[in-house]
């Protein structure tokens, strides 16, 4: 077990490579789809498809157990951010009922070198992250909604990603887990 904790430090890449690749992807999508809202939607879907696969990697490498409350979930997503993007966002703005919270990103590797032109102000550039969170949680039977509240690209101080718990997918619970 001691080795498995060190194993995922091995394959590190420069974050600029990620920034540039992601930028190329978004730029290409804007060329292909004329509608900016469609691009945002596609980015979310892309993230979702990444999330449903990435969760397995996260579970295999960290060996974490099932979350029983949303605080636990938030902590684990926070460590996933650290693992996959090398950033540690703050978990803040809990709703009184404890079913909604935000990740505050003061730096975001996806947007490091990016400025949004005026005609793309409605683009949700980081929507991929929202999709990835939703997809990953869906695979562990948590139905959530995720969206961007603040965006550094639009002049805000931080990037804020809001996550809202909707329900537990009881019928999708694997046997022996429910």
């Amino acid at each position, binding site marked *: *077990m001691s*080795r*498995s904790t060190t194993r995922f430090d091995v394959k590190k890449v420069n974050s600029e490579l990620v920034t540039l690749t992601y930028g190329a992807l978004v730029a290409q999508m804007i060329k292909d789809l004329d509608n900016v809202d469609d691009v945002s939607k596609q980015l979310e879907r892309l993230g979702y498809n990444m999330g*449903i*696969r990435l*969760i*397995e*990697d996260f*579970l*295999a*490498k960290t*060996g974490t*157990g*099932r979350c029983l409350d949303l605080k636990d979930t938030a902590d684990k997503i926070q460590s996933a951010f650290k693992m996959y993007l090398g950033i540690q966002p703050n978990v803040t703005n809990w709703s009184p009922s404890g079913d909604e919270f935000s990740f505050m990103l003061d730096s975001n590797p996806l947007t490091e070198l990016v400025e949004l032109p005026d005609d793309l102000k409605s683009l949700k550039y980081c929507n991929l992250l929202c999709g990835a969170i939703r997809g990953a949680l869906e*695979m*562990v039977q948590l139905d959530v909604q995720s969206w961007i509240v603040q965006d550094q690209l639009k002049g805000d101080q931080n990037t804020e990603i809001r996550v809202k718990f909707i329900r537990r997918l009881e019928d*999708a619970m*694997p*046997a*022996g*887990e429910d």
Partner: protein
Amino acid sequence: MVIYGIYIVSKSGGLIFNYDNVVPKIESERKFTYPLDIKLRSENKKIIVEFGQKDGIQVGHVLNSVNGIPVTGLQMDNGVNALEFIEKEENYPVTLQFARPKMTTNEKIFLASMFYPLFAIASQLSPEQKSSGIEVLEADTFRLNCFQTLTGVKLMIISDRTQTGVDVLLRRIYELYADYALKNPFYSLEMPIRCELFDVNLKSLLEQIEKGVNNI
């Protein structure tokens, strides 16, 4: 200390991966004179030994070849019905080869989907609340270790009863699955895993186990 095989069952109960690592091959060949001193019977389009165990030929073994001619189903490869051939006195002495029946892919899929409800029943039968399903199933000659991931995928290892470190091996296979199956963009979820990289890495992992490397 042997790993016999590895199975991966998807969340919906379908067999998505199977690898036979070590398959004990049991074949026995003998010359027979008339009349035949073992009882044969045809079942499920196979000729099996019904009674009369001797010389390594065991009840349940399947007729493999007659005089060196392979038998497929009930027929010899030259088109002659094997049972009829064996019944005729003029064909003796005859050399028959018997072997343990091999599982076909269909049978494996069938068995994998049978384990699925067993696992679910086990968790419901439990006298304690919140029980997992079957994690270890032990028999005379083998042990089945099952690990269910949080997403519902079941990884199973059929191993010798004396094999140690199977738990760690299951986690390592899970990592391989996460790396080489799920990160392959052309692999669609819930479908059979046909990824060469996964196979290659799994094989090298099993080789390490066989060499007795413990810190995998």
